């Protein structure tokens, strides 16, 4: 079976080979056509393998093209003598390179095929990338190194970030006791520059705080005006810090937080603050008196 198939293929190749030679001979110049056909068919018999015969036939097709090309050129007149023939042979026309017209044409055709193949490959790969979605792949990314901050000045260290949330308080204006000429400046924590611009938060409970101050029965400033200061005409306001319980009594000894410029007046203010224990008005939150500390301004002024 296989031998029969081999013989059939051999016969087919033989037929193709003969057809190629006959076709090549027919395309040759008319004066050479029959000669070349017989010559090539005779030389074909010397080839044994089918592949060699096929190559020979294809070569004959190419030879026809070259022969036709040679015949189309204007022939050089024949040499009349050997000396004339010697002069006519132009060695400058010699081509000693390995690339004849045939080889050059083969290279050009091969180059065109390679370029076409490359173009198809690149175009198809580009089209495939557009038509099909890219494969979804997981890529393990290297951790991004933390951005370097500028170096801190020596001695300064940042231990962490904190966010200060200011407690919203109602800024109660201090109550001024005109008669005793003693003014309270409110709690030290009360002045809050950030409290005013903040909009009120409706759902948050707002503690209504009323700062304390001198209450009923608080001693008169004149009783504690130092006599030497009166004689010297010293005037001024000393601010003391007092801590008061819900009953208006001092929780601790008052301290001077802002001097009046006169030690005597500051001492007189401290005596007045101490003497007022039990007569302070306690600070209230939502109406309930609570312990609180607040500055108390005491002004000494001579009446003219």
């Amino acid at each position, binding site marked *: 079976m296989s031998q029969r198939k081999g013989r059939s293929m051999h016969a087919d190749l033989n037929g193709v080979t003969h057809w190629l030679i006959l076709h090549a001979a027919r395309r040759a110049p008319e004066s050479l056509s029959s000669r070349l056909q017989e010559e090539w068919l005779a030389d074909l018999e010397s080839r044994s393998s089918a592949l060699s015969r096929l190559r020979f036939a294809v070569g004959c097709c190419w030879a026809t093209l070259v022969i036709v090309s*040679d015949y189309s050129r204007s022939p050089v007149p024949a040499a009349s003598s050997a000396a004339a023939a010697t002069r006519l042979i132009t*060695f400058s026309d010699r081509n000693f390179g390995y690339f004849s017209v045939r080889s050059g044409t083969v290279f050009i055709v091969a180059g065109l095929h390679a370029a076409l193949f490359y173009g198809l490959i690149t175009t198809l790969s580009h089209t495939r990338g557009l038509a099909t979605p890219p494969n979804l792949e997981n890529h393990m990314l290297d951790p991004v190194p933390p951005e370097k901050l500028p170096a801190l000045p020596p001695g300064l260290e940042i231990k962490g970030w904190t966010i200060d949330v200011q407690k919203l308080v109602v800024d109660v204006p201090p109550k001024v006791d005109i008669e005793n000429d003693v003014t309270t400046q409110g709690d030290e924590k009360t002045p809050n520059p950030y409290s005013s611009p903040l909009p009120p938060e409706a759902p948050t409970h707002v503690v209504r705080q009323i700062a304390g101050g001198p209450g009923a029965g608080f001693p008169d400033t004149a009783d504690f005006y130092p006599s030497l200061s009166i004689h010297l005409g010293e005037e001024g306001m000393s601010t003391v810090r007092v801590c008061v319980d819900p009953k208006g009594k001092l929780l601790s000894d008052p301290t001077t937080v802002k001097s009046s410029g006169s030690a005597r007046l500051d001492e007189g203010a401290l005596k007045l603050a101490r003497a007022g224990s039990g007569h302070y008005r306690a600070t209230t939150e939502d109406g309930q008196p609570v312990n609180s500390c607040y500055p108390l301004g005491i002004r000494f002024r001579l009446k003219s």
Partner: protein
Amino acid sequence: MGKKNANVRMSLQTLRVLEAFLENPTEQLAGADVHQRCGIASGTLYPILLRLESAGWFVSQWESVDPSTAGRPRRRLYRLTSTGLRRASEVFASFNRGVLA
């Protein structure tokens, strides 16, 4: 070929064909014989043979056999002419001297 064209392009393949004939200048060779000696493909060989014949370097004639008796077609046999032998010798001599012309 009829027309004589002495202007022969001396390619490497042409030199190899001439070399095959110069081994025995009186010998007649068919195209298949030249192919076996120098290995030139048929597409290059036959145009060279025709050019050299056209230039008067070769003469060719049919093999004197009866195809029916031999069981094969007649072969075309080529042989160097006296002109061809001298010119081919000059060409190779110039190469041996290292001078082209």
